[in-house]
């Protein structure tokens, strides 16, 4: 099951790697499964998007980072 969240979060880092974030409760990141960058709809001035697929101590999460806004977003949770 997957749930679309799309809410801003604060991400903690260990060195240059994402380590944990709080969303109701603490999610500890155990492993970065994948990460990629999306160009976005540049013609609509949409900013570039960095995507991290991580495995936390609770579930699989998709985190988005908007570099222009310097904002992390918890985009999706997957069981």
């Amino acid at each position, binding site marked *: 099951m997957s749930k679309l969240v799309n809410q801003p979060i604060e991400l903690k880092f260990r060195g240059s790697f994402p380590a944990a974030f709080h969303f109701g409760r603490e999610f500890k990141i155990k492993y970065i499964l*994948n*990460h*990629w*960058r*999306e*160009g976005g*709809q*540049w*013609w609509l001035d949409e900013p*570039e998007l*960095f*995507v991290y697929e991580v495995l936390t101590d609770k579930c699989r999460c998709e985190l988005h980072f908007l570099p222009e806004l310097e904002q992390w977003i918890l985009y999706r949770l997957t069981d």
Partner: protein
Amino acid sequence: MFVHLHVHSPYSFLDGASSLEALLHQADQWEMPALAITDHSNVSAAVEFHKLAQGLGIKPIQGAEITTEDGTHLTLLAENSTGYQSLCRLITAGFARGSRHQCLVPWEALRENARGLIALSGCHHSGTAQALLRRDYAQAKLEVLRLLEIFGPGQVYLEMIQNYLPFSKRLLEGIAKLHGDLRVPLVATNNVHYLRKEDFPIHDLLVCVRTQTTVHQLHPERPFNGENYLAAPEEMQRRFAAFPEAVENTLEIAERCSPALDLTENLFPRYFPGEEPEKASQFLRELTWQGARRRYGTITPALRERIEHELNIIQQLDAADYFLAVWDLVQYAQKHGIRYAGRGSAADSVVVYCLGITNVDAFARGLLFERFLSLERAQKPDIDIDFDARYRDQVADYVYRRYGPEKVASVCTFHTYHARSALRDLGKALGCSQAELKRLTKNITSVPADGIRALLHRLPELKHHPLHGEKYARLLDYCAAINAFPRQMGTHLGGLVVSGEPLTKVTPLQPSAKGVLITQFDKNTIEDLGLIKIDLLSLRTLSAVSDTVQELGPRLNYNEIPLDDGATFARLQRGDTVGIFQLESPAQRSLQSRLKADRFEDIVASVALIRPGPIKGNMVDPFIARRQGKEQVTYIHPQLEKILAPTYGVVLYQEQVIEIATEIAGFTPGEADRLRKAMTKFRSQAEMEAIGREFIQKALARGVERQTAETIFSYIVGYAGYGFCEAHAAAFADTAYRTAYLLEHFPAQFYAALLNAQPMGFYPPNTLCVQARSRGITILPLHINESAAQFTAGDNNIRIGLKQVAGMEAACLESILEEREKSKFSSLQDFVYRTKVKKDVAENLILGGAFDWFSPNRRALLWKLPHYYQSKGGSLFLETSPACSQIPDFSPFERWLKEYAVLRLTAQGHIMDFFRPQLPKTVLTSREVAARREGPAQMAGLVIRPHRPPTRSGRTVVFLTLEDEYGLVDVTVFEDVYRKYGRVLYSEPLLLVTGTISRRDEAELASIIATGITALR
């Protein structure tokens, strides 16, 4: 340090978004020791890249990203010239296996042509990456093993690209595993498609153009993100921190590669293969002297010296084979009765004249051979020949047969982005509708894609153009960014290269739309590779001449046309030159009426005078005044007299610039020609000043006074930038005079031939018909039983041909002619029943007047037509259509318009016939304007070719011709009037022009200086 080994330039055609200069400039800033260019299936950038990189001290590594026959990509780098040749053969094989649009390299070809190549396993479209993405590790391993088998150990690298795609991590892990298992070295690349991250939208847009999508549509080939830029070495090191070997290996590969191009070779075929080059020189010598005896009869010592001089230079430049090859093909043309005429600077050569290639006597004219060929310049010879347009391909075929298909190819051209094409393509990619694109490109003239904003502010008709809107600001930026990028490859109109060795030694070959093989280098770069281009050009004027000569038979010996025919010169003096090669434009007609040419030299000067340079340089008026003795001819240095006397003290020809530099400053002819060339290219002010200093210093050393030397140099600067080659002018003048003679003495035949050779010349066919009528020639209407396929000339008439009818295809025409051969058509119905002509063409035939002979009511015939088609092959009772005698015909005006629409001309009358009765008497006819000396005038007519040539003042002036039922009058629209009426000028077919009659002198044709313009409706 790091070297980018997988880089696409704009020659990847809509997949590379930064110029070679920009990429190399950045590499230079980072002090990269080398750079590779790996365009898709071509090496078109190779020469330009080689030269630019060498200039910056960067090692150029030639390469290509090829697509194999199974659709997978592979990055290949040429380690040396052997590798480059392998690459050329592979790409050629790929196009042979694939199609014109798709190069699919067979694996077998890779096995046979792997020498000298380094293979990088490729991007995510590679066989290895595709297998890894399918999680088929075993297959990925097999793919790498296949590369090892083909290229050998040490020649294969596993390509790692970290461009942050959703699958990049998996791919990199898989490649690292292959590296561990197979011990194949790694190499890091960034599959570069543009210089900076912010250039990503340009790349995305170009891909949209290539895939025919808009930004709103998905396509698998559209880039996912903006990571394929020329990343800095530090960034690449950061990205591949876990694989330092991958970064280090880029340097190792760069170290192994050497520049693969040799730009010093001469690949032109030997005329006598396997023999010493002297044999060709000797044969050329024999042919030249034979020709000299034929052309001149007596060989004077001066002539002997001149020919020897030329032959010695040709021999020293090892160019005898080239001259013989060109001689050989004109021999072919002569034997097959194909009309030709050599042109260009080759006409500066007496040898070329003796060989029968040109018809310009360079010795008698005192033309300077060094303008064509010189030891100092050591440039390759370039001979251009015009052929009767219909037989140019036949001559080209002969060249293919003569040298072998693998050694001959057409030269390619690159269609590059200009304002209109950039707006159209990028606008479409951004989602603009067709109607919007039409609005956006309306009235945008042929300017560079980065000059649209300037144009919008310059032209009055663009004052309210939608592109001024903020909405399109970015579109204009994007257009500017792709200015001059090659969009696609085409075929050069005339250029053929001939090689002594298979062409794939230096260039891949690929099929063109026409079916012939083309090189991947254009005329600007092909010669750097050791190939010499022969220009076989099509000239429709020669087709018209051939037709006229054939039609006249024994009544005319074209080669013996007297060069002093009074009637012909009288025609020129009246400016009555519509239809004459090179002398028919409004500016030429005006010049002719003032110049009063009475000798061949005047025509040579005319051809050179009406060019942007002499006009801008205000040379025309002084030339005319001096030619007519109204202004004194003076020379500021006695040595100039012998050089400039033929042009009355005016520097008109490029040859004169060379001679001045030689005589006054003591330049060698080669040095002087370098000076001419340097100035022709409009170098920077600093460079011009440097050349000037050299000229003046040398002149001073020869005893010329400083002020005189400076004044002479100012002449050269003033004229050399746009001076015309005298030899070329003389070659054109020869054809110009002869066509003038034909027009004067055989107008019906020559006008008919001109009409058959359309499209050509300055004027549309209807204007030629108006002109013919003004000579008393009857234009006979289209006639289904009398018209031939083409226009045919009678004693004093011209019959319109069936081919002129819109939509008339070869099969239709054949069907009509075949049936008519059996028996003439007796009615429209008979015509429909017996031929295979499509209904829409039959309609056009009716509207064109082809059936007026059966029934003059064209509308009634149109009404009957569907019934005939319905009953075709059916009922024996043929006349099944209802009676139509009550159907009124079109009005005369409608008839005229419809006839014009299907024929682009009309047999009778002029559109002004319909408007004239409504116009007040104050509106003059062209005949009345011509008869007036000065004063106010109003004239109405059909607008012919409004154009904005460069002017002396640099201001915009529009010239157009108004055509009415009696003839032509030229109109000049100055900038202030143009700003006011520009919109009407370019959108209305009929205009009423108010203004004043202008003549610079008594003799000049009257023209109108417009003060007001309105549409005539």
